[in-house]
């Protein structure tokens, strides 16, 4: 969109827009900043009548207090393992299904597409008891496998939805041309189609990751053991415990930061690729 020869009027409005942009960015990031800032300050400072806007004189004491509980790392491990399993399964299943609905006509195709959409409309709050019974009957409560299946099912519809745009956007002619050049179907797919799909897979993967990383209520019900708590459960437990004395906001913010940081790192890491992924997928909606 950047025009090469900017007229002065355009340049002036661009400056104005940029200023608006910076202001919006500052507003949007404030809660995140406030969490980081508070996590470095002591509770006494935080209870002060005048807020402290910069963590001057702050320390990592809140973080050491949080780590001292000794339950953070097991919960982190649990969350990471579940997230990895779900993301991989989800992408694989969704990709195959997306391939089916965007490249094939078959009986039941529409019903499938509709089912995928309908499942997203189900209010999850009514399903807990049944999901508990389901996992309990097969002995998968408190297990990574059990919750991973539930998560995969709840994320896969949207992933299919996202990926079908990408798959449809890749002209099959490219693959066929490669086959004319002597590649096998699999080779053509791996060398031509797959690289083109990568951004889409990343964008969908990030979405799946985020959903799983954040999920709280299903986990609460099907992971009743403390030992199998995921990060959101751990965080909620930490907040509850803190509230049973007087909430130590500094520590609570440090704990929240610890839950958010892995996602933020992961996000910033794939950021460039993800936006380009959204770009190529979006318009085909």
């Amino acid at each position: 969109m950047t025009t090469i020869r900017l007229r002065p009027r355009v340049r002036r409005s661009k400056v104005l827009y940029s200023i608006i942009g910076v202001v919006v960015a500052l507003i949007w990031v404030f809660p995140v900043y406030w969490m980081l800032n508070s996590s470095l300050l002591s509770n006494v400072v935080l209870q002060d009548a005048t807020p402290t806007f910069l963590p001057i004189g702050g320390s990592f004491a809140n973080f050491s207090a949080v780590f001292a509980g000794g339950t953070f790392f097991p919960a982190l491990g649990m969350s990471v393992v579940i997230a990895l399993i779900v993301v991989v399964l989800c992408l694989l299943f969704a990709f195959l299904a997306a391939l089916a609905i965007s490249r094939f006509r078959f009986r039941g195709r529409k019903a499938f597409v509709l089912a995928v959409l309908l499942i997203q409309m189900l209010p999850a709050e009514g399903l807990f008891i049944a999901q508990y019974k389901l996992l309990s009957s097969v002995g998968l409560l408190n297990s990574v496998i059990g919750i991973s299946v539930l998560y995969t099912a709840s994320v896969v519809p949207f992933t299919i939805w996202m990926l079908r745009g990408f798959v449809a956007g890749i002209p099959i002619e490219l693959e066929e041309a490669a086959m004319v050049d002597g590649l096998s179907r699999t080779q053509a797919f791996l060398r031509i189609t797959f690289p083109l799909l990568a951004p889409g897979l990343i964008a969908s993967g990030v979405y799946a990751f985020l959903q799983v990383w954040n999920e709280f209520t299903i986990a609460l019900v099907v992971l009743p053991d403390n030992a199998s708590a995921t990060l959101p459960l751990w965080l909620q437990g930490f907040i509850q415990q803190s509230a049973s004395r007087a909430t130590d906001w500094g520590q609570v913010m440090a704990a929240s930061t610890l839950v958010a940081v892995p996602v933020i790192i992961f996000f910033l890491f794939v950021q460039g690729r993800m936006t380009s992924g959204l770009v190529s997928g979006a318009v085909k909606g």
Partner: protein
Amino acid sequence: MKNKLWGATAFAVAGVLALAACSTGGGSAASTGIAPSTNGKGKTITLWLVGSDTPDALRTYLTTEFNKETKGTLKIEQQDWSDIVTKLTTSLPDKNNTPDVTEMGNTQSPTFTNVGAFLDISSQYKALGGPKLLQSFVAAGEVNGKNYTLPYYFGSRYVFYRKDVWAKAGITSVPTTLTEFNKDVATVAAANPDNIANFSGFYLGGQDWRDGISWIFANGGDIAKEKGGKWVASLDDPNTLKGLAQLQDIYKNADNAPGDAQDSNQYIYINNDDSIAGKTSADAATPVSLSAATIMAPGWAHWSIGDKGTDAKGAVTRTWNDATFGNFALPGNDGKAAPVFAGGSNIGISAKSKNPGLAETLLKIIFSPTYQQMLGKNGLGPANSDYTSALGSDQFASALIASSSNSKLTPAAPGWASVEASGVMEEFFSKIKDSTDLTALAKEYDAKITPMLNTK
């Protein structure tokens, strides 16, 4: 469109019937007369403790002692008060995942006991303490004369106040009747000797029915009564209304707590340094701090009240200072302490436990003199009245004992847990302050609460 929808549903339905068949089988009635077993070699039982009230030393004692007696392993899982009902609802009926023994709030006990969630332990009742056990809690775990859950510990609420502020407002003696208390806190509030913004003579959260209920009890009222096997809410009972009128007066004239504040952490408002800004931004610099001269809280709050200090690690400590702080049991109008809401827990064995014998051995350990005394030493009221002395004889112990001497429980109605879950009590209390017709308000909420009380 229609058949497309059906097609979609068919996808979800397909292959499900097999799974549906796996749903819970019929529950068997809890059997009686299982004897404690000490044969626990290679076996593990699970105990759920809720919240962090049971100190670590006591947990360690339970696990070592259990292992000593049975050679088995005791696994203690800590649960949160905020979601214990969810967890009990899903886990107790599930024989593969049920805790063998679980703590629950005393008010949650009737609901679960009524649906047969717990093992009948009547045969052990005598051996575990019998009539010496706190009877109001025993009743919360009793159905048709059989015992299912027993008291674990109790706490009760009493008053903490700022001697210095009360004195500056001209009151130097502790009130001896409820009427006097009501008057005193209004006087302190009106005087506001330190000119503090949002000052409360008595800080009672707008939704804090657990503390506010004492005014209903003290006037002879109640939340609900059982009539011919049916529970009926009795907020419009004349005695209840008397209490409500007093509460309204407090809310209006002595109290500046937020209208949606509940029973949590009241104590931070009577300390000196949980600083609160001044009335306007201009006098924000004034070091005004405490915003409540009086609070009501469970006894263990005294650990969080006092002069501020820091320990070696830099963490905030509180040292009780008799010159500044005082405490007393809320007085009634009959010369006794006002009936307060008895907080505390019950404990029971899951009807689906696979090791009921071992679970009973655990109960034996919990109700043993040693453990009962350990509870008392940690400020938790022991279930067995023989060991109340373990609480000690300091001012906190005497206030705890005085206040609990006349403590009351919430109605033992089967649907009480629904009442708590719906938040209807909180809602009712939050409306007292601005109500122009308390009788109508009480009737309105009676109509809401009565059906909930009788749901099973």
